[in-house]
């Protein structure tokens, strides 16, 4: 080997293989910026508590969005499913006086069901999921508002018995239980994505659905599963939300979908499908949450958050694109 090839190789080795590496670098950068900007407040107990309490539900949905994007689709209805689940929980308990635990089960199932509806609509109508879930985003929420109206539904709980609040927004081993839920799900989904054939199939379907079909993969089932997982995670997020705040607000949830989508993009998931893992969206979602928490800590008006998120999304998209170009160049000999 000549000198030049060796130099080229060592340089090439610096190009990260995985998008998640970039996502991690961005997270570190954002944390550093806010360490300086908030003079360390970002890692104060109060700030971390805020993150751990309100963060997990958003990240859960980001993971779901990541998988839907991986199979080459998009799910604009996550925000609606999230709120719908919290409303099912609170509504059943309050208006039908069903036990809180049963209401929780119903809420989780409603997430699964709505996700399944999305998936079935996408594969049977063959209309783009952008349009289908744009429809169901309005549809799910409209249905909810028609049935219950735009009134906040409180959840009463008795403090002396073990109730859903303890499981979904309580504390265990000094951690908020929602953090534990999140970690368990990240590990589980990561295992599915990286170690099982279903993970490979999701990527294959998103990369080239025709080839996937030619190789005999159950492409429709894979697509339906991705939407259903997204619905289930939104359902869990909704239960956490309602447990945490002891109420459900039917007319809320605005901006959730965009935040989740942005998190997935910062997580290195491609909008054109076939790229993305579980760790990336986890880091991407976390990055956005650090940004919003950071601004809260600085006492800056909310609108700045949007601007920084905008920059983060576009900057990372550019970074991923450049990385891609570098990898292509490396492979051309």
């Amino acid at each position, binding site marked *: 080997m000549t000198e030049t090839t060796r130099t080229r190789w060592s340089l090439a080795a610096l190009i990260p293989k995985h998008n998640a590496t970039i996502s991690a670098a961005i997270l570190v950068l954002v944390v550093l910026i806010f360490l300086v900007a908030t003079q360390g407040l970002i890692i104060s107990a109060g700030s971390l508590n805020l993150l751990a309490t309100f963060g997990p539900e958003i990240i859960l949905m980001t993971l779901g969005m990541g998988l839907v994007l991986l199979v080459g689709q998009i799910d604009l209805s996550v925000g609606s499913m999230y709120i719908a689940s919290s409303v099912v929980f609170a509504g059943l308990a309050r208006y039908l006086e069903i036990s809180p635990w049963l209401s929780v089960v119903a809420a989780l199932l409603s997430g699964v069901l709505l996700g399944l509806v999305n998936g079935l609509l996408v594969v049977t109508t063959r209309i783009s999921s952008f349009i289908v879930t744009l429809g169901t985003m309005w549809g799910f929420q409209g249905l909810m508002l028609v049935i219950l109206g735009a009134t906040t539904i409180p959840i009463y709980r008795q403090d002396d018995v073990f109730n859903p609040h303890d499981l979904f927004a309580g504390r265990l081993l000094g951690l908020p239980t929602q953090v534990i839920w999140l970690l368990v799900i990240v590990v589980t989904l990561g295992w599915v994505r990286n170690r099982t054939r279903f993970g490979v199939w999701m990527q*294959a379907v998103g990369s080239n659905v025709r080839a996937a079909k030619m190789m005999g993969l159950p492409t429709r089932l894979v697509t339906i599963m991705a939407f259903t997982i997204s619905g289930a995670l939104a359902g869990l997020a909704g239960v956490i939300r309602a447990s945490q705040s002891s109420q459900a607000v039917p007319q809320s949830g605005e901006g959730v979908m965009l935040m989740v989508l942005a998190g997935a993009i910062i997580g290195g998931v491609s909008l054109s499908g076939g790229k993305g893992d579980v760790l990336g969206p986890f880091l991407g979602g976390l990055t956005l949450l650090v940004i919003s928490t950071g601004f809260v800590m600085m006492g800056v008006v909310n609108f700045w958050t949007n601007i920084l998120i905008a920059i983060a999304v576009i900057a990372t998209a550019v970074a991923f694109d450049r990385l891609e170009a570098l990898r292509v160049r490396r492979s051309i000999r």
Partner: protein
Amino acid sequence: MTQPAIRVQGIRKAFGATRALQGVDLEVAPGEILGLIGDNGAGKSTLIKVLSGFERPDGGLIEIDGQPVTLRSPADARRLGIETVYQEQALADDLSVMANLFLGNELRRGWGPFRVLDTRRMRARSQEMLDGLRLRASIDQEARFCSGGEKQGISIARAINVKAKVVILDEPTNALGVVAVDRVLELIRGLREHGIGCIFVSHNIQHVVEVCDRVALFVHGTKLLDTPVSETSALELIELLNQRSGNRI
């Protein structure tokens, strides 16, 4: 008399006004290599997509080992032992060469719902598969970085390395270099020893005459000729193609 590995009767398929297949009969015995020739648009690929479950025929019968079957999807066909190399690229570009080689046929270990990909075994096998075709692509490289010929080679490797009853190759030597073509023809001959039936579509009459036992000639969705290769010659086939395919209605 031996049972044909695959037998079709009266297969019809139309795309709108285009009658791509107008009642085709065909059979391939185990260990037999059937060459399929015909002009562009003669219906060869359509027949192959029907046999591989990718397209549903409008009518006709398909039998595998003497059993009538309905192929609802490529998954059905693969399960029944039909492996296909499609004319168009059927690789997922974002997946590694290895993942593509095992797509839909992943090796796994463990039990029940906890079975995981057996990456170690797949790595070793895929290296063997590439070596078998003298392909130099790395098994970890994303498929989109492969050259056209390498991609073609991957599709072929994946079809030949499965225990299939019938292997169908739609213009497999299209993008290949001279050495690779020889290697592929050699592998096709190798199928014979394993008792695997093979359908080989090609525009290269020379190759067909070289490896096939029998040759079928298609014109406008019908089979015009079906004869042992020993009873014809490349020259005669080319002559026939020129005569019959030139004059469209």
